[in-house]
């Protein structure tokens, strides 16, 4: 083990998930951390979604960017990654970075200092965010892993993506629980959306058709302090 004690305490061996031979932590806060690579992946931040709505007349609270950055700050402080990959739809629209309040911009820039930061292009933000450091890429291959925004139609081992905002639902004792989740089949992994205003889509929805091997599909549902690994056969649509 070559990571520090502080970080080691966060990671129990049992919580590690295998993706194409790499070991990763599915953090209940919705980020994926690869201890061996010191790499943190986060997806679908949708920063400035609030102001994007406000432009169209729905004046929802302008605190989503602040809330999202605060949570991002916390996970970065915990894991101290040397690489951060934001897996696309980092901003809700192309103008998002430009609209960001100065204080938030400074907060974000502070997080980026001292680490390699990659903005993967998403469908909401195909271009590099205005006036922000970091490298914008279409996709990124590291070791046996491939990071991209939208999951590709063909099954790729080691692909880490976002875009679909997966959630899962189970019914127990006539009651239903729905949570955001990581969805994986051992080969590829689709990450939950991280942004404060991001909704979610059930992993059994048609949009996921053909993406997973059904027999090994697992939903890692986000709990308050831990992940709940639920096998695909127990999941419900809706």
């Amino acid at each position, binding site marked *: 083990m070559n990571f520090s004690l502080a970080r080691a305490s966060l990671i129990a061996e049992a919580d590690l998930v295998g993706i194409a031979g790499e070991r990763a932590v599915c953090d209940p806060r919705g980020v994926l951390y690869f201890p061996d690579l010191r790499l943190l992946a986060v997806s679908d931040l949708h920063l400035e979604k609030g102001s994007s*709505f*406000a432009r169209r007349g729905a004046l929802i609270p302008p605190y989503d960017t602040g809330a999202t950055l605060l949570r991002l700050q916390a996970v970065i402080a915990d894991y101290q990654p040397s690489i951060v990959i934001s897996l696309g739809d980092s901003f809700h629209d192309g103008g998002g970075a430009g609209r960001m*309040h100065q204080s938030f911009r400074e907060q974000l820039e502070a997080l980026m200092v001292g680490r390699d930061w990659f903005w993967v292009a998403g469908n909401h933000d195909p271009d590099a965010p205005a006036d922000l450091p970091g490298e914008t890429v279409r996709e990124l291959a590291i070791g046996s892993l491939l990071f991209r925004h939208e999951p590709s139609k063909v099954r790729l081992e080691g692909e880490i993506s976002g875009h679909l905002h997966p959630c899962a639902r*189970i019914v127990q004792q006539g009651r239903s629980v729905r949570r955001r989740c990581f969805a994986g089949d051992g080969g590829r992994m689709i990450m939950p959306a991280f942004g*404060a205003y991001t909704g979610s889509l059930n992993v059994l929805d048609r949009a996921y058709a053909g993406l997973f091997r059904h027999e090994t599909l697992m939903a890692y549902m986000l709990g308050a302090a831990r992940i*709940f*690994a639920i096998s695909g056969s*127990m999941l*419900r*649509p809706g």
Partner: protein
Amino acid sequence: MTEQPRLAKQHAAVLLPEPFIKWFGEKGWSPRAHQLELLAKAQAGQSVLLIAPTGAGKTLAGFLPSLTELANRPRRKAGMARRGIHTLYISPLKALAVDIERNLGKPVEEIGLPVTIETRTGDTPSHKRQRQKLAPPDILLTTPEQLALLIAAGDARRFFEDLRYVVLDELHSLVTSKRGHLLALGLARLRSIVPGLQTIGLSATVAEPDELRRWLVSQNPPGDMADLIVVTGGAKPEISILDSEERVPWAGHSARYATPEIYREIKRHKTTLLFVNTRSQAELLFQELWRVNEDTLPIALHHGSLDVGQRRRVEKAMGENALRAIVATSTLDLGIDWGDVDLVVHVGAPKGASRLAQRIGRANHRMDEPSKAILIPANRFEVLECRAALDANYLGAQDTPPLVDGGLDVLAQHVLGCACGAPFRADDLFEEVLTAAPYASLDRPTFDRVIDFVATGGYALKNYERYARIRLTKDGMWRVSNPRVAQQYRLNVGTIIEVPALNVRYVKAGSKGSATRGGAVLGKIEEAFLETLTHGDTFMFAGKVLRFEGIRENECFVSNAPGSDAKVPYYGGGKFPLSTYLAEQVRAMLDDPQRWKKLPEQVSDWLRYQADKSVLPKRDDLLIETFPRGNRHYLVAYPFEGRLAHQTLGMLLTRRLDRAGARPLGFVATDYALAIWSLGDMGAMFKARKPSLGTLFDQDMLGDDLEAWLADSWLLKRTFRNCALISGLIEKRHPGQEKSGRQVTVSTDLIYDVLRSHEPDHILLQATRADAATGLLDVSRLADMLSRIKGRIVHKALEQISPLAVPIMLEIGKMPVNGEADETLLMDAATLVEEAMGPGMVEE
């Protein structure tokens, strides 16, 4: 207040124009005293509240001032300008407006009056609305939402400048809701346009007529009231409680035991109206009746979730007296007169004395003939409640909920509506809003915050100035910033929030709806219920047993499932809490063995056993029983304050018991009682005064404990959603698309979480907390109770369960604890996986 008939006749000649007197004569009628009295007051320039029982000729009374004035009005000559609306009639139900058009049209035609009457509701086609704007009818029959729309139109001033009267029907039911708040603000607006405007309120009997009298007129000067006319009398209804030969169950709500006896009554009468409290009860009773319907009597079903077409067919058949019985929920509650109903059966306890009176009013709507009604209690506590309701009805007691301060979310909607109509000055609008009774005590800083909210969201972080919906211009006027704002406002007007619901559509069994487009739509069912179903589950809806086939977009596909074993739909809405007044009556009855004689023997025996084994609570006491059972300890309290207040109490008590080390495991609440179970011996703890019951039930639980619990509660999130929609923070509908609850693009739960952590004092959260305190949580009622029982708690430590505790103990495990989806379920599921696959199953 009513005058002698002879006097009335002389009166009539003075007040009524000749054609009216002739018409009454031809009909062999004479105008009733209260009709003339109202006419006289109206002609003297007064606004009036008329309180009268059903069948007293309220509608005609309400319109007489308008009709007589219109009869005397000089005819419009060619070339004269078009006249605007003369009288606006507002009712809570579209169906009522349509009904009035028919009922009023008849005398107008027979008297030969040159008066045009038209309806304007959500169903009115747009070409007709356009035409109404150009050539307004003399009398316009409409709903509160339509009034809001008319006010938000640019031509509002011109449209209403000739307005003389506003007639408000079923006022008692309008004023208690947010629709009432919106309507009160609309009226204030109309009074600004037409300063001499008179209002006529028509209402069933209410507890506090003065509240309605203030509501009808400008509250400048404060406290001003409309005149009051009360019509008493009417024949006393004949109400009985079913004295069943069967055993009345301890618990449950189905009243299934009484089905054969109900059926016998239906056969004995011409038309029977059967009321139940919830839609699921309606479905169940309907099924049960058809099961015993050997004579295949035409028995129909009517509730708010059914498809509109289906409901209209039932109403039509009812009007034609083609039905023998109708099973209905509150959708048929209000004053619509259809057919010759000669019996009302109320299944389940009525929950409030006023509601009972209203429903019984449906039978035999001739005021001078007694109505006939039978109450069917579904369980033993309901027997007590029915008895109390019955006594209350004879006492003429009433329990309309107290009016609450106007909602700030509603005010926000109104402010935007005003701006859509015409630019406004904040000072003027504030003055105007204060004249509306629900807003009479609004302070200026709060009003200004509402304006700020409408303009830019009212956030401490000033980020949205450039996106303002309304802007203050140099001349001191607030104006909408672009026409799109007005367009969006019009699509989202109103305060009625639909719970997310899906269409229920027929398909062939097993088709999952993928291949076919499917058959008829049966109605709508709440999403939350459908989510608990899985393919192949059966449930009752629209009077049928259906199999769940799947969900596709916003439709739920079902197929016929012959056979009778079905899950009953669970509906969030439609369950009323026990009224304060009835609760008091029930407590009084328990305390008075003399009154038990009126109860069926099996019930009075039950109370005697209770007195023997434990104790019966005194009228103002709170009885707490503790006893062990299995490996658990139970606490049962009997506050009789209604399910909502008990639920809140249960939440708060379990928090406190947890802190005291009692290790509580769960609780269940009914209208009558609350049961908590724990691992620790609560009885022993109370005896040792660790804690004492006095401390446990101290009012201070409504402080920090409430705050802490509320913050994360689904109750508050649901309330916030309503406030967000009504206030216009998010849209119910956006131009060109209709969104289902799921598709509202940013979930209000997420907005709530973000807003609460960043700006807990935001005006919308303030509005949410105010709503929750009166609505879902019933905090005010709980507060009254806690202060009432101070020093009056009676603790009975028992060795075993008491007779009074049996009903609530039977509810344990049956009632889903609402909404609070907890992680223990996830834990169970995850554990299952671990068991099946072993730990570390994901390591490769």
